Structure formats: structure tokens, C-alpha cells
């Protein structure tokens, strides 16, 4: 009996339906796993070949399983196909015969071990971490690092990466090709860095993971599922980093805490109609308590040692929000203190802007406006809608309605995402309503005094 008929009968027997069920993320997980295994055997020099092999193996699985049904051990099936394809590719490109030998050895080991065991050869976390260090090499630009990570470590398609970065397929393809060429030129090894090199590489990986998370967090419109997926992947990869002694540093804990404590608030970010909600308007009962608890745990872990990075500070700020029962009862002086430290570590305009919000709750809106005066002199910040949004909010709290309206109009003009635009439209509407109301009151008073 041939393999094909076995496959057919397995798929068509109702009782085996359970065992051959494959999960939604199956192909993504397989492509990650294969990337790791093949890069370990072939080295990171030939990521393009590896990518082709992984793609082709997954494609053949799709084509064959469509008609034949899913085999009993889908992961083993894909691995076997991938190893064969890799061997063919080696022969075609006449790559070092040592690699072919390594492939054959791996292949034979696969064949001789029970397939279920062969699917995961126990080196997955190690391979993935090595790959993470390859993708996040300091010689590659952070955005390119993130794109390659999405491809290689997260199993995203070019299309999905293009959607995530609001870019075109062709542009992403080009960037990925350039990055892979760069890795080749650098002659990067597939190893775990040590000593000083480790600190450098870890730092680079942290930046890429932070960027990946932010990319998902900041975009709230368009293809939302993709963006939440980016945050999930960032969390998954940071967990991976912490799973390995090499990556288990207080700073990695802080980064994960920051991600978890931010993600915990996702469920309340949008209203029923899909509008962005400000922190004050969010339903805190919707916050994910399990994520908050995990976040607080890692925040605790991050405090071991004397490292106090920007991730530590940001995680601290996120935690302060998460544990406050209401917006009003938030410990704003604690948040202001943390922002003061963040300004010292990372003196950017956006950080200063956020600090001003905290300041307004501690020392009042006037103090915050005065602080914004000084940071707003830089042109770059004035072209950002958030600057006008915050200034407008502060004016509104001081009942400077006209000035607040001016600010919200500017914010509306600069905002690019639809939910954000809708938010400013609502703010303006609120102002108009309160102005009309005020005018009516003003209109009444003289009449009363005349009476």
C-alpha cells in the first residue's frame, strides 16, 4: 500500500478526524520550526534558500493534504519534505558537502526515530533564540530586524508584513532580500553570543521586540487582527528570550512586564462602535487581570539587580495605571516621578509630552501648559497630533473653549487613523455643545437682569 492511499483512508475515517485535526497556527508553527532546524544545519548564510524550502514544503503539504487528507503526523511529513527539498537545493547550488552530510544525518535520524518524536527534536527554543539573535543583529536597521523576525520567527507572509507596516509587498520583499544579503555579507554565525557581545546583541533584540510590540499597539485601525497579532508575537518572542538562561535578564523581564501590562488594557481601548477610548473613559473591569498579574510578576523579577532601563520605567508607569481602581485614584505623583526618570534616560518630545499629562494631574493644567510651551518650541512635536490633543485637553480643563477647539481641529487635521479622527470630532462636538449651552446661559442673564 502506498503512502498516498494510507493518507486518504486516514483522513476519511471519522474516528481519526480528531487525531489529524490541525490548528489554525499550524503552518506558522511549522515554518518557524523548520527555519530553526534548517538554519542550525545549513547556517544563516543561506536564509533565502531556507526560506524557499520552508515555503515549498508548506505549499506541498497544502496541495497534497487538500486532496488526500491530513496525515497522522503532519509535522513529521513536512519535515521529511523540507529535508528532501533542502538536499536537492544543496546539490543544485553545490554548497559545501559537509552541509549535505549534516542534512543526511538529520534526515536519517528523522527516519529512524518515531515520527512523533522527530517533529520536535527538542532544540526548538535554542534554535529560535539563535535565529532571534541573527534577525536582530545590531548591523541591521531596527525596522529591517522586525520585518525579518516576522518572516523567519513568526511565520508571517510578505503580504501580512506589508499590511502590518502599511507598505507594499514589493517593498517588503526588497527589504527582506537586502537584509538576507546583509546577513550573508556579515558571515554571521548561528550561535549564542557571550560576554560583552551578548549585552550588545540582547540590547538590539530588546529594541526590535519593543518596536514590534509598538507597531502593533500604535495602529488601531485598518487590519486590526494583524496588529494585535504583532503584539502577541512580540510577547511570545520575549517569553522565548526569558526561557533561555542567555536572555533571562532583569531588562528582558522589564520589557515583558511592559508588554503584558499594556496588552492587559487592550480589551477596553475601543468602544462598542469601534471608537478609541481615552484612559479616563475606559471600562476598567474589562482589563485582563491575568495579564496584569503576569505583568506584575515580571516587573518584580525585573527589580533584581541594579539595572533600571527605560523598559523598567515604562513598565512601572503601566503598572501604576493597571492597579488604580479608577482614573481619579491613579497615583499621579508616582507616575510623574517615573516620567522624570524616563526623561532622563530618553529625552524625547513624546516622553516630555506624556510627562506633561502626569504633571497636569499633580500640579494642575497651567503647570502642564507651561511645560508644553518649552517643549513645543521644537517644530517636530507641533507636527504630531498628540501635542495638539494634549494641549487641547488641558485648555478644555481650564475652560479655554476656543483655544481647546483650535487645538482639537489641528489634531484632527494631523491624525491619520480613522478612530483617532473620530475621537477628535467627538471632542469638538462636546466643546460646541458646552459652548452653545454657555451662550444660552449668557443670553439669559441680561434678560433676567432687565426684568
Amino acid at each position, binding site marked *: 500500500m502506498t503512502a*498516498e492511499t494510507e493518507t*486518504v*483512508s486516514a483522513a*476519511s475515517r471519522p474516528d481519526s478526524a480528531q487525531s489529524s485535526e490541525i490548528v489554525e497556527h499550524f503552518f506558522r508553527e511549522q*515554518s518557524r520550526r523548520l527555519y530553526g532546524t534548517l538554519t542550525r544545519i545549513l547556517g544563516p548564510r543561506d536564509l533565502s534558500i531556507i526560506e524557499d524550502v520552508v515555503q515549498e514544503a508548506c*505549499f506541498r503539504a497544502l496541495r497534497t493534504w487538500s486532496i488526500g*487528507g*491530513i496525515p497522522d503526523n503532519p509535522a513529521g511529513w513536512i519535515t521529511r519534505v523540507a529535508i528532501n527539498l533542502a538536499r536537492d537545493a544543496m546539490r543544485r547550488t553545490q554548497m559545501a558537502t559537509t552541509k549535505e552530510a549534516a542534512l543526511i544525518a538529520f534526515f536519517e535520524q528523522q527516519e529512524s526515530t518515531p515520527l512523533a518524536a522527530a517533529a520536535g527534536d527538542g532544540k526548538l527554543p535554542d534554535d529560535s533564540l539563535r535565529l532571534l539573535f541573527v534577525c536582530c543583529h545590531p548591523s541591521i536597521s531596527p525596522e529591517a530586524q522586525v520585518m525579518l523576525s516576522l518572516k523567519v520567527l513568526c511565520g508571517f507572509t510578505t503580504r501580512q508584513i506589508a499590511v502590518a507596516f502599511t507598505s507594499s509587498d514589493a517593498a517588503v520583499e526588497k527589504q527582506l532580500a537586502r537584509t538576507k544579503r546583509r546577513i550573508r555579507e556579515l558571515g554571521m554565525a548561528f550561535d549564542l553570543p557571550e560576554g560583552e557581545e551578548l549585552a550588545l546583541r540582547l540590547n538590539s533584540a530588546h529594541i526590535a521586540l519593543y518596536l514590534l510590540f509598538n507597531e502593533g499597539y500604535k495602529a488601531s485601525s485598518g487590519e486590526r487582527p494583524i496588529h494585535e497579532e504583532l503584539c502577541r508575537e512580540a510577547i511570545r518572542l520575549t517569553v522565548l528570550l526569558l526561557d533561555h538562561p542567555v536572555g533571562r535578564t532583569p531588562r528582558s523581564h522589564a520589557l515583558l512586564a511592559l508588554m503584558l501590562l499594556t496588552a492587559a488594557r487592550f480589551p477596553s481601548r475601543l468602544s462598542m462602535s469601534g471608537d478609541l477610548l481615552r484612559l479616563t473613559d475606559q471600562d476598567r473591569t474589562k482589563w485582563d487581570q491575568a495579564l496584569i498579574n503576569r505583568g506584575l510578576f515580571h516587573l518584580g523579577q525585573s527589580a533584581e539587580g541594579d539595572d533600571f532601563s527605560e523598559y523598567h520605567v515604562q513598565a512601572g508607569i503601566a503598572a501604576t495605571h493597571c492597579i488604580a481602581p479608577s482614573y481619579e485614584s491613579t497615583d499621579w505623583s508616582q507616575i510623574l516621578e517615573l516620567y522624570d526618570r524616563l526623561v532622563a534616560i530618553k529625552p524625547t518630545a513624546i516622553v516630555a509630552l506624556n510627562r506633561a499629562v502626569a504633571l497636569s494631574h499633580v500640579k494642575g493644567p497651567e503647570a502642564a501648559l507651561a511645560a508644553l510651551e518649552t517643549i513645543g518650541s521644537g517644530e517636530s512635536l507641533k507636527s504630531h497630533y498628540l501635542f495638539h490633543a494634549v494641549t487641547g485637553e488641558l485648555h478644555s480643563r481650564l475652560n479655554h473653549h476656543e483655544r481647546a477647539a483650535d487645538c482639537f481641529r489641528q489634531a484632527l487635521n494631523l491624525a491619520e487613523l480613522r478612530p483617532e479622527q473620530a475621537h477628535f470630532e467627538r471632542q469638538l462636538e462636546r466643546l460646541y455643545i458646552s459652548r452653545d449651552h454657555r451662550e444660552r446661559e449668557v443670553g439669559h442673564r441680561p434678560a433676567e437682569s432687565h426684568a
Partner: protein
Amino acid sequence: MSLEPTSPYLLIFRDTSPDLYRALSPEERVALLNRWRAWAHQLKDTGKLVQGSPLADEGRVVKGPRGRHVVDGPYAESKEEIVGYFLVNAADFEEATAIAGECPGLPHGMVVEIRPLADCCAVSRTLEVPSASSSQHEVFA
């Protein structure tokens, strides 16, 4: 088993644009597999699907009067590569066409060719290959 007389039809699956498949996201691939699976199960449960299989990527072609001309690789004359087949029992051509029309591969550029098995086949009688007279077979038993 089935009350109405049925005849065997071969559904031949051809891929015309593998690039469409290649462009699918991992999640779309799983969804497509699940659609195939549901389709095959439903055909099987109603006794219509007799047998079926994908074809492996390698193949050979034998030609020439004495079979001396042997070429590796699937028969490459056609751009529409045959990737597999289903053997189904259907009441008539119309039903077989309706079955083929539900193939989940169609939106992805797959082409399904329907060929009735000609009756009075001596080979099927000697080998007990399913013919118009025998419906369900032990392939799925």
C-alpha cells in the same frame, strides 16, 4: 446500498496557478484544508466518494513502441498539472458536475475535469475496481 443506480465518475484535479496557493497566509491555508476536509467527509458520508488520492510530485513517462523512451518527471506537456483525483459515484453527469462545482480548490485556480468511467471494462471486472454495479468499497472501511 444506494437506492438509485449510480455510475462512477473520475474527478481529475488540476492546478493552473500554484502561485495563488503560495500567496495564501498560514491561516488561510488551514482554512482551505478544513474546507477540503469537510467536503470529502460529506461526500464520503453520503456514499459518493469511493476513492481518491493526491499525486506525488515525481513521476515518469514511458513512450515509444517498445517502451524504451522513459522520461523522469510528471508528463510536462500540459500547463495544468494533475495533482490528484477523486472517484465518485453519481446518479448522472449532472450530479457529478454539481459535486465538482463544490470543490474548495476552485476559487484558487483549480480546474476539475469530470470523466465518467466507461462501462464494460474488463479490467475493472477482473480487479474488482468499483464500477457502476458496486458502490461503496473497502478503501474507506
